């Protein structure tokens, strides 16, 4: 343990810029995410497959995109679908998407709890029918809504984030809960997935819907490229039909299936590759430093000895080809920051120090 190491405030940092490798837990993601130009289309109004190596930032981009859409207050409506298990049933994805949609609908209503009562009865009934497939059942979620104090309780249980900045569950939420509970769903059948998408547009004012699909390769059954391709095909087949209705599929996939012919078969699907070079990696450091210093400086040079220049590029260039990934540059920086002695700064020696044989992971 380095006892002499400098504290973050001494270095001018309000938080540790290199703390998070895991985007899901990173509250600063939105302010320092670097999006390579090749994948900027992930935020555009079009279907897209994003390919990346493991650790290449797929999930970070997915979370970033979802936050980005949420900021539009649902006008561009994000639905995140990460399959919860593997099933060979070709309809599995669509029922998974329905569940994700139900989560999104509930969290939207909770974000603007007064909206519900302004809808006509038919719409309200349709909403209730959609919500019936929520995980743990509608009653459980309504119970949670009525007894929880904070909206984060619901966010955590449902695994989705709210659209508005409301923090506490208030009277409106209890009213919403009661209304939903009391409402008769009616005898009508569950609306089709297409009808559910339509409802997002008519009731919530969504102009486009963005289906963010990730984690498809996270199962033993789908670790091989052919198996994975076979599994996602039903989604690709729905793509064109969806696009015509401003429903855009954004699917995040491992690099090894990028060149598969069956991906190319779906003409409507644009593809982009999340790839990193030295300059982008240097940009990752600079943005993090910028955010952590509250915009006071944007380079490690600022906390380096006078003769140190271009420290970010120096660090990026040191990474061997197979390690030119965000996580490795972040780990490298973390190590360097940890080694700055008390009262000291980053020196050329520190910058060029040989790395230990096997790197840590966290």
């Amino acid at each position, binding site marked *: 343990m380095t006892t002499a190491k400098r504290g973050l405030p001494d270095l001018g940092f309000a938080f540790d810029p290199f703390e998070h*490798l*895991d985007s*899901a*837990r990173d509250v600063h993601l939105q302010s320092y995410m670097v999006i390579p130009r090749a994948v900027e289309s992930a935020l555009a109004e079009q279907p897209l497959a994003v390919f990346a190596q*493991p*650790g290449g930032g797929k999930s970070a981009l997915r979370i970033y995109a979802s936050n980005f859409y949420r900021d539009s207050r649902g006008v561009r409506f994000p639905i995140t679908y*990460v*399959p*919860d*298990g*593997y099933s060979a049933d070709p309809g599995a994805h669509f*029922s998974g998407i329905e569940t994700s949609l139900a989560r999104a609908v509930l969290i939207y209503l909770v974000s603007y709890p007064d909206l519900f009562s302004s809808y006509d009865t038919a719409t309200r009934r349709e909403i209730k029918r959609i919500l019936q497939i929520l*995980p*743990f*059942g509608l*009653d*459980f*979620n309504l*119970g*949670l809504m009525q*007894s929880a104090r904070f909206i984060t*309780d619901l966010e*955590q*249980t449902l*695994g989705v984030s709210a659209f508005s900045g409301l923090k506490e569950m208030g009277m409106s939420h209890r009213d919403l809960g009661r209304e939903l509970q009391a409402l008769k769903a009616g005898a009508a059948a569950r609306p089709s997935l297409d009808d559910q998408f339509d409802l997002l547009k008519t009731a919530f004012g969504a102009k486009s819907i963005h289906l963010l699909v990730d*984690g498809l*390769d*996270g*199962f*033993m*059954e789908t*670790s091989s490229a052919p198996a994975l391709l076979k599994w996602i095909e039903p989604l690709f087949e729905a793509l064109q039909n969806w696009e015509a209705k401003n429903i855009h599929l954004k699917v995040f996939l491992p690099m090894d299936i990028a060149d598969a012919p069956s991906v190319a078969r779906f003409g409507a699907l644009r593809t982009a590759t999340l790839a990193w070079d030295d300059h982008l990696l240097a940009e990752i450091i600079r943005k993090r430093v910028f955010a952590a210093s509250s915009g006071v400086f944007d380079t490690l040079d600022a906390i380096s000895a006078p003769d140190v220049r271009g420290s970010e590029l120096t660090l990026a260039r040191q990474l061997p080809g197979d390690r030119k990934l965000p*996580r490795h540059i972040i780990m490298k920086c973390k190590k360097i920051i940890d080694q700055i002695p008390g009262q000291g700064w980053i020196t050329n020696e520190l910058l060029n120090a040989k790395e230990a044989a096997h790197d*840590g*992971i*966290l």
Partner: protein
Amino acid sequence: MKTVPPSEVLFKTLKAENETWLGDVFVPPPVFERLASDHSVILYGEPGSGKTAARLELMKRSPNVFTPLWKPEPIMETPATGTALAAQSMGRVLRACVEALIWEAGLPKRLNEPPGFIASALQWFLKTCLPYDPLAYLQNQPGRLDGDEMKWYEKLLAENQPSVITEQTGLKDRMQLLLSIVRHAKYDGLWVMADELERWDALRAGEQVEAQLDAILSTLVLLDVPGIAFKLFLPSSLRKVVGKTSGVSRRRAAEVDLEWTAGDLKTMLERRASYALSSSVTLRSLCDENLFDGWLREYGGSAPRDWLRFTAPLIAEFQKQGKRLSADQTRAFILRHPAPLRLGRDRREVWLGKKCIPIGSAYEFRILDYLASHPGKIGSLEELYYYAQAELESVPDSGEPKWVPRKTWRAAMDTMIWRLRQKMEPNPGEPLYLVTHHGKGLELLHVEA
């Protein structure tokens, strides 16, 4: 007032689960900080390297995290494969979590009167994850819950709650729901601990246990629930399976090695010694530090177990004598308590404590093997010769076909014994292990029982 256990306990039990005073003497391994992060971590260590101690200390230092212990076991019914096996294994994990909720989490106090949705969730877990009827399960372990707690559970189970989880509910949601209960009980998060895997070796049900770990760690959704982390304390031998899972390669779980520096190990035994002697002592104040420390480094390996085991008699000696052992006394002590000897028969190795000595020659090794399997026996040169050369359990009579005149092998036997001593004795001139009883034969001493 704390009760100080006697030094032989402090240095010998080394069953971390029994060491209530562990926190007072715990020396965090270099990787401890990473273990305590809120990520999933796999800690590899050899037996005796202090995995369980690290786990207990981690639990102690994270009182606001709910830390159920899952002891993986082979699945008796037909085990599934792939994601289905992950689901089956998670069933076991959930069971461990629910049992820990009952016995360790103090739910009645923490939840008091839970809101309906928490009550229904908890009821589901109790009714579904326990091995048999939940009420019977609770009643079968009398005394573990007090009357009020029992009543609390009886009331909870009697309530007519809707079932919140269906066949369709995925693994992640199940974990998420459990986390909701845990958070409602005012814990910050949930760490599933896995330990005690050493029981399963490859010959028994090890492969099946490995497959469970493999399935869980290859199902990324399980590792992606914020608030839930897995802390797996695994024998190093499992790295070959676990290290290849996508959970590890995609960095959902970090692999770290439980390794100790000689400095850490010394600090550890000094803390224990200080605790045992109720005063602050260092190795230097007990004996000749250089001699003893050098000896520990050579034979004690890099895990705490042997360092502590070898030091226990030193503490006793120190207490008996009432003062520091001089250099000569330290040397004499070491000679009286040499590192125990063990044979590695698969690879023809002699282990002195944690020091490994390869014995290349099969004949030489058979000499040791014979003596080791007849503890307390003085083996005559004849016995040893016939066993080593001809694999005969007894010496043939002259005239039997296998009988060979003594003069033809005597010199070769002497050479073999000389070579063995060169290889394994700390001081071949004054053998400690392979000793000669003049006119009778050889005896192998300090063989580990």
